[in-house]
């Protein structure tokens, strides 16, 4: 399968107010993803996981390294369901926005597409003219996934999509992501700090610490025989070893 994302020796640093030196956030990060693969990016807060996602999507300037992403319209799902939907707009307006940008479809055509996506993400049509504030965390996260799907992306970056949700709802949202992945051959870069959920979900997992890749591998081998001390500590703290 051909490669849709290649990141080589990525270095990113941020300027700091008052301090002269810039804070190095990513050093020599290299990773690649094949079409339709689910790559897990595991690391604690401050390890630079979100920075990698933003660099791939071109949202932040990078110091060195190359990012070749030939996936069509890569999209992102964010962690905080309360800030990722425009509070002033209705669900149907939010879902139609990508269509307004990309296609020349008529309003009626757009509404049809919105209805079909709502089915895909397991929500009823009566949510169409509700505002985000009237929805639960799980519903909002599904709408985010729906909005991303509207642009028919080949790569979806999910930045801790379920960590803000209750355990039972987390499982449902992950199930939804998995089914879309299978149906649409959608590659997913799954960013999380929860090694338990990543075990069943990801094909491969990259362990990140302070902006550097510590280790990489298939979950079964990685969890069974971690080479690096830090990976062992992570597994132990999560009560897996």
């Amino acid at each position, binding site marked *: 399968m051909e490669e849709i994302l290649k990141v080589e020796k990525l270095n990113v640093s941020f300027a700091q107010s008052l301090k002269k030196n810039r804070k190095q956030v990513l050093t020599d990060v290299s990773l690649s993803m094949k079409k339709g693969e689910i790559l897990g990016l595991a690391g*604690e*807060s401050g390890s630079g996981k979100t920075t990698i996602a933003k660099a791939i999507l071109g949202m932040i300037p990078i110091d060195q390294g190359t990012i070749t992403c030939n996936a069509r319209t890569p999209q992102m799902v964010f962690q905080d369901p309360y800030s990722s939907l425009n509070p002033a707009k209705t669900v149907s307006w939010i879902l139609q926005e990508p269509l307004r940008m990309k296609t020349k479809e008529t309003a009626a055509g757009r509404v049809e597409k919105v209805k079909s996506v709502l089915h895909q993400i397991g929500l009823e049509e009566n949510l169409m003219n509700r505002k985000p504030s009237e929805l639960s965390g799980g519903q909002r996260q599904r709408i985010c996934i729906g909005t991303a799907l509207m642009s028919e992306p080949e790569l979806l970056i999910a930045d801790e999509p379920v960590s803000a949700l*209750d*355990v*039972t709802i*987390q*499982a449902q949202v992950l199930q939804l992501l998995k089914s879309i992945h299978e149906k649409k051959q959608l590659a997913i870069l799954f960013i999380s*700090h*929860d*090694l*338990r*959920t990543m*075990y*069943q979900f990801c094909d491969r997992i990259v362990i990140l610490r302070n902006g550097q890749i510590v280790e990489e591998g298939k979950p*079964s081998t990685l*969890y*069974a025989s971690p080479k690096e001390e830090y990976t062992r*500590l*992570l597994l*132990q*703290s*999560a*009560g*897996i070893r």
Partner: protein
Amino acid sequence: MLLEIKQLTIEFHDHLVPETVVKNVTMSMEEGEIVGIVGESGSGKSMTALSVAGLLPRKDMKKKGEIWFEGQELLSLPRKELRLLQGDEIGMIFQEPMTALNPTMKIGKQVEESLYLHRDLSRTERRELALSWLEKVELNDSERVYESYPHELSGGMRQRVMIAAAMVAGPKLLIADEPTTALDVTVQAQIIQLLKKINEKNNTAILFISHDLSLVKDLCDRVYVMKDGEVVEHGKSEDVFYHPMEDYTKQLIAAIPVIDLEQD
């Protein structure tokens, strides 16, 4: 019997329809025991904990039932007397270490506050006790931490400061309302170990509130499972975790991804 909650019911009256948040919950705790309350958001677990700590807002809130702590019924206790227990006999730590400390007050002063309120000690004695507890919670550079402000510390360090501040007056009961949810996994494990150590060394009973059943299984002797304000199941944590009776508990356990590494 250190703590006994009998038929506790809490109703909110701030909007038109009174909302029952906790429905006749009954619990008990022995001295030095670690008891867990597990439930998802909205299950009433935090409300139960807050009512034991006497932190429920006074107005538009109706409380029925009894909470017996060392022979005193907390719900009917006048505020003046309840205040004597808070911080002295009952300590509490919260979920968000980032916002649970006063941003413009030095750490040392916040850790000493319970001593200031409940003990008649000199400034230096209070400082000594606070520093000793900062070391007990494994904050090695305790002098510097004592003088610094909350925003200068990491989440993990702040939670340790919270524990020190709650334990400094030697309470018999420590209530921990999801203390590790906002922390990284590695730091989470350290805080849990710290709580175990405190329980062993000081024989402090801990009421541990969480939504993470696997966490509660390792830490607590007994556990209560709560759903929509009611206790659905309770018992020894191994019994509840390995052979649950109620299907809600089964559902909770099923949601935890099982990782069996032995097969390959």
